[in-house]
């Protein structure tokens, strides 16, 4: 279990404790959870795979970008890997800021960038017994800043 990529359940309470900050008045959390259908097909679980070291670097970079671009004080991102049943948390973004507007914008930025840039892949397992990797976002050769 690293700071960014976790094999066990994500622990929101622990992340909230680690980001406690008396100068922040706004807290925005985004979390992705495994839902029971995709384009009409009943889903029973999702397996997430990551290129772990590269994913850690990308999530760290996104955290740093968030702190640099938005008027926020804390940003943490964690993604789970392995096979997750319905309802389990696959990703958590925690942002704390003095005020709510930049906290919302920063959390949205963080999850949008994660989805485009983190080397993580989702394989859906359907009620039918079939599994499928989903279409995704092609990575960029070079990081754009």
């Amino acid at each position, binding site marked *: 279990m690293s700071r960014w990529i976790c094999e066990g359940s994500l622990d929101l309470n622990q992340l909230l404790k680690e980001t406690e900050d008396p100068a922040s008045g706004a807290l925005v959390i985004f979390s992705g959870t495994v839902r029971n259908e995709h384009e009409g097909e009943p889903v029973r679980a999702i397996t997430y795979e990551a*290129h772990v070291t590269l994913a850690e670097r990308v999530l760290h970079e996104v955290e740093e970008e968030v702190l640099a671009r938005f008027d926020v004080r804390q940003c943490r991102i964690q993604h789970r890997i392995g096979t997750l049943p319905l309802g389990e948390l696959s990703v958590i973004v925690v942002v704390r800021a003095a005020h709510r507007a930049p906290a919302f914008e920063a959390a949205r930025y963080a999850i949008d960038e994660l989805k485009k840039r983190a080397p993580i892949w989702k394989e859906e397992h359907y009620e039918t017994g079939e599994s499928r*990797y989903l279409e995704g*976002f092609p990575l960029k050769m070079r990081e754009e800043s």
Partner: protein
Amino acid sequence: MRVRVIFYGGLKNDVGAKEQELQFDRKTLTVAQLKEGLIARYPGLRLKLPSVVCAVGDEIVDEDHLIGDGDEVALLPPVSGG
């Protein structure tokens, strides 16, 4: 030269393996040349490799990056985390 290739996401289903140790009869090998060699071995990859990016270690590398003998090259198809 010898290259260890690691297939991420759906690519491992196309190849039938998560990792492959491949031999190339060349003195130098770019990422682009590695992709050509992979298509020769696994024709099912032809349509997919243009949107696949390669990483050596935890660095994403360009098509003209020179792969070293014994390098481990990760093939990263379009991502779908979140």
